[in-house]
């Protein structure tokens, strides 16, 4: 053990033992509490009983709403700590901000350069939408990776569930395989992007702001993209084709909402089901690999959502007429 005096080598070996310990704990845990087939539900589960809000309909606290609040708190906390870090750096004679501000600066510089190469002079208008959508979706997607999300929650009666096994009687419990009175788990926090309400809301926001930015850039000429009567009078035959293309553009705006929302929802929902099923069938080690894959998918989907918004917005700022 004379070589063990070298510090990095010793720490690496130490961490290796921790990993081994966790693997052994995993195997023991799987034997003591055998995993069961999880329940899958498309709509978010309700945590409280519904409250009637008159004309707005029934409202109940769902577990994706809890996740939404958590995501918002994380984004606000990031903004607060970044501002504090920058202020501190400015006080100390304009030193380079370190820590979280430095990391965010790298990310935003990359995103801003991407915006500028696509949108040109409209980059300053488009960039806030791009960056904020990317950040919110990124944090919402990565919440899936936190242990306890999607798995810790209230037990409730369910016809398709499994019987209950008490760990601390009355306080803690888990569902197990076998027979008896059946229960299911309603998690406190469920990944935000597996709720269609969130993805559709974000998609509608993105498409409407695209129209607003197009209107700001081109004025009322923007609507000739959808309803081109001027070309109809100018050149009778090809003008008719232009007019029909305008009708198609209207349909494509609505299909954007559909494709935006279903892409994010489908990817993340499929990912979480993959995690559930792999966790139930092969509970040792394999789920770690899937988690790494989900880390990648979450990043890519957040970037795709933001990048497509940015590209559609920059397309809306460019007029079609000038190309002819």
């Amino acid at each position, binding site marked *: 053990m004379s070589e063990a005096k070298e510090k990095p080598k010793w720490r690496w070996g130490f961490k290796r033992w921790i990993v081994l310990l966790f693997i052994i704990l995993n195997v023991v845990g799987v034997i003591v509490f055998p995993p069961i087939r999880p329940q*899958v*539900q*498309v*709509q978010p589960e309700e945590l409280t009983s519904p409250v009637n809000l008159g004309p707005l309909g029934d409202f109940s606290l769902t577990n994706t709403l809890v996740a939404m609040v958590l995501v918002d708190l994380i984004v606000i906390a990031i903004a607060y700590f970044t501002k504090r870090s920058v202020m501190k750096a400015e006080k100390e004679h304009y030193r380079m901000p370190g820590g979280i501000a430095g990391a965010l600066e790298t990310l935003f510089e990359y995103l801003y350069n*991407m915006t500028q190469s696509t949108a040109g002079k409209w980059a300053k208008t488009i960039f806030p939408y791009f960056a904020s959508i990317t950040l919110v979706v990124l944090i919402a997607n990565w919440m899936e990776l936190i242990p306890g999300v999607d798995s810790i929650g209230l037990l409730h009666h369910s016809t398709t569930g499994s019987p209950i096994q008490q760990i601390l009687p009355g306080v803690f419990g888990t569902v197990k395989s076998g027979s008896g009175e059946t229960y299911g788990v309603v998690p406190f926090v469920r990944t935000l992007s597996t709720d269609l309400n969130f993805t559709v809301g974000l998609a509608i926001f993105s498409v409407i702001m695209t129209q607003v930015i197009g209107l700001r850039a081109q004025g009322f000429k923007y609507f000739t993209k959808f309803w081109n009567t001027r070309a109809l009078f100018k050149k009778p035959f090809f003008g008719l084709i232009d007019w029909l293309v305008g009708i198609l553009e209207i349909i494509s705006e609505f299909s954007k909402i559909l*494709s935006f929302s*279903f*892409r994010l*929802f*489908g*990817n993340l*929902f*499929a990912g979480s*089901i993959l995690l559930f099923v792999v966790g139930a069938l092969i509970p040792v080690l394999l789920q770690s690999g899937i988690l790494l894959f989900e880390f990648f998918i979450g990043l*890519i*989907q957040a*970037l*795709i959502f933001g*990048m*497509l918004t940015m*590209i559609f917005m920059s397309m809306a700022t460019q007029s079609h007429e000038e190309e002819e």
Partner: protein
Amino acid sequence: MTGDIVAAAKLIGAGLAVIGIAGAGVGIGIVVNGALQGMARNPDASGNLLTNMILGIAFAEAQAIYCLVIAFLILFVF
């Protein structure tokens, strides 16, 4: 032999719905093929090509995801 015909039809329907993913697989293959050929011929443009390639993959992948969503809806909602 137990179970009812609706459950069986659900499983068969979900299985049929995901056939469409084959098309998305071909599409992603074509996208990556084109991007890699472009990168091999002009390595300087690879950064720009990579961004557009991932965008193209996302568009092609979206079709697969629609199939998957339909399969999930058949299995878990109806």
